[in-house]
């Protein structure tokens, strides 16, 4: 059930991408995501596809895993595509049934939107698959460090994020257990109207919250017992230092950007309406 969600999971493997500095991965992913919205043409997406699948290949994360991450957003994807398909006007009308009509522009927008969303999720999940949540939060802490001067508690936010990531699987398992236990007591979670269903969630949410608070309490005590006292005076077991490979990775990403945008915007190559 809920355990099918793979977004945010780490896939342990020894690969060049796993070894990269997490800051490189965050910045590159962001650049990649932005690049997807800078062009709408076959050559551009060709470059993006090669880059994405090349990275997946190097990362040693099975493609199946990354595709599985698309499952939870399938509905969202479908809605976006349908909206774009039917509500965008412009160009010749390709199909006209009753009040629905599909235009050339609509089809084009829908297809590009689908590709963008799919690549976006795949790119983001490649980052989380190859970076431990701790490394990720470390990187965010470092990247956001300048905000410290504006009195933003960057270290605390990063710590909260990493703890949340650690407890997501535990709480999911707990939810599963509580659901089963209440079903065993005859709870009906699946039928009824919205209000009845919302009411049926109470026996699951209350124990879940109680348990989350208990865990938070325990964890705070355990952290204090291990001398945690905020970010000041703390050293790092894995401090972030840029290596040669990180610089090379940045260069490759920049090359990709130039190539993709160049090909996407200036190479006149069209098939039918795309």
């Amino acid at each position, binding site marked *: 059930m809920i355990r099918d969600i793979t977004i945010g999971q780490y896939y342990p493997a020894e690969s060049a991408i796993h070894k990269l500095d997490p800051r490189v991965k965050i910045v590159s992913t962001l650049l990649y995501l932005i690049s997807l919205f800078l062009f709408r043409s076959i050559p551009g997406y060709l470059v993006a596809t090669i880059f994405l699948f090349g990275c997946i290949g190097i990362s040693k994360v099975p493609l199946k895993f990354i595709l599985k991450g698309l499952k939870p957003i399938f509905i969202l994807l479908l809605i976006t595509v349908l909206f774009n398909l039917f509500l965008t006007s412009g160009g010749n009308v390709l199909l006209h049934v009753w009040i629905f009509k599909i235009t050339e522009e609509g089809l084009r927008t829908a297809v590009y939107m689908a590709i963008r969303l799919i690549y976006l999720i795949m790119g983001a999940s490649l980052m989380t698959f190859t970076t*431990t949540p*701790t490394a990720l939060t470390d990187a965010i802490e470092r990247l956001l460090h300048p905000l410290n001067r504006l009195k933003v508690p960057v270290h605390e936010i990063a710590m909260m994020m990493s703890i949340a990531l*650690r407890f997501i699987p535990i709480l999911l398992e707990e939810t599963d257990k509580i659901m089963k236990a*209440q079903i065993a007591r005859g709870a009906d979670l699946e039928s009824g109207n919205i209000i009845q269903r919302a009411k049926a969630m109470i026996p699951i949410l209350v124990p879940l919250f109680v348990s989350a608070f208990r865990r938070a309490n325990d964890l705070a005590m*355990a952290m204090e017992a291990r001398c945690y006292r905020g970010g000041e005076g703390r050293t790092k*077991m894995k401090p972030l230092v840029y290596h040669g490979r990180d610089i090379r990775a940045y260069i490759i990403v920049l090359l990709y950007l130039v190539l993709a945008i160049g090909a996407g915007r200036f190479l006149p190559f069209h098939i039918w309406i795309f």
Partner: protein
Amino acid sequence: MSMVKTEKLVFEYEKRDDEGNVIGKQRAIDEVDLEIEKGQFIAILGHNGSGKSTFAKHINAILVPSGGTMWVGGKDTRDDNELWNIRQSAGMVFQNPDNQIIATVVEEDVGFGPENLGVPTEEIWRRVEDSLKKVGMLEYRHSSPNKLSGGQKQRVAIAGVVAMRPECIVLDEPTAMLDPNGRKEVIRTVRDLQKREKVTVILITHYMEEVIDADYIYVMDKGKVVMKGKPREIFSQVDTLRHYRLDVPQVTAVADSLRKKGIPVKPDLLSRKELCESISKLYGKKEDLLEETATEEHTVFGQGKDPILSLKNLNYVYNPGTAYEKHAMKEVSLDLYEGEFIGIIGHTGSGKSTLIQHLNGLIRATSGELSFRGRNIYEEGYPMKELRQQVGLVFQYPEHQLFEVDVLSDVCFGPKNQGLSQEECEKRAKEALQMVGFPESSYKASPFDLSGGQKRRVAIAGVLAMRPKVLVLDEPTAGLDPKGRDDILDQIAMLQKTTGITVILVSHSMEDVAKYVDRIIVMNKGEKIFDDTPKHVFRHYKRLEEVGLAAPEVTYIMHELREAGVPVSTDITLVGEAAEEIERVLKK
């Protein structure tokens, strides 16, 4: 200089009303005086709520005394300037393995403490490697804690403390949530650390077997230290220990009942070897005895009656077709009859939890047939809701599922889901609460304000209120203290006798299973390997050991006696039986 020293230590919890005003105080620790020497293995025993955990939190300065003084390594814990030094020198391991691991990778978690202390990076790496080696978890350094067993997680937690180079480790019931193998793992690790690294170990527990090797034991009750001494001195006072809601190891229990029968075995016995030597000395001669061979007799259950639950060639595969595919149940066939008291044993991961979740249809078998009163529950249109009411399932730590504002409404949840009237619901709820021995005066209390044992009673009543014909309990005694364990099991046994329902008890304790059930099903790697009476099953103790289980301690005593030439029967699974059998042989 002593490691830990207290003088008239007092700690009071403040009770507050809804507005936060103090309305009363409760003494959790009451004038405790003790002194713990460096390098020792100290045990603190006591039932749930005796104040032992509160005491432990003082050693790490998580709590500071309300009165009196506590010194850790000569430093007063009330001195704010020494706080971090105290926490570094007295590390603490808690009960719940999940709630004390901070990082998502083992090695990073072990590094958390040194990071907080400001240790330089290279030194952190050295310490992490060294600590993981000491607890035998080095090969798991890159693993996610979620993939580890309970015992392994606790060892990671211990490594996390060791990496801070403490002089003393305080373990607050580190084994309460573990299975027997995990428990052994953790205790062995702790013992090694104490012996090799000369770290002072303070172990808080209510498992008596774990403290036999301790240098010194303190027993707490109502916030006071009520007994102290070497293990031998403590365990020879069987009745006093029971008075404090504790138990004694079975060896000591056998010796005690023998002495009560007038047989002069030595009074301060701790190991099987000592007991056997003492008895064979009394017997006076050494006979040449063959080991009793395990006969291949099988008990046929049911005898022609129709089974209430019948499983035929049940298979269950987790995540079929993926990398995580796991055959959790293989070709299990079983017939369960009305009125039986059945025990299911097997080590963690043997498939026992999967098996019981099939019984009320929570998990659907991949193949095979399961019928309740002769009707296959997998046929289309089978009323699952009704099945779940007939086969009541109480999960592990069922109190974690309580949610209502008061006890009575929580117990009403089951009957209400059956669509009964408010009146009928309350009637059934009250009846169920009576069955588990819950006091009527607390019916309107919030379930969250109750003690652990009472919460569990309410949770079990919540299932009983649906008037099931079969009651399945997954480790109903987990985490309770010895008296609490006995109370719950006695209550269930009585309920089974008076109402005649079928009870299925999943347990890790061979002693409990031997004492209560009439039939044992042994699971291993998803297969049923035994299905017989306790006596017959425990004859195969060598096979049980191979699958990570064991026979009750008394059975081993009888085997060792026989090896020592005392002609006792080895078909013994209970302390009382053992004492009688030894008496019979000695008086011959």
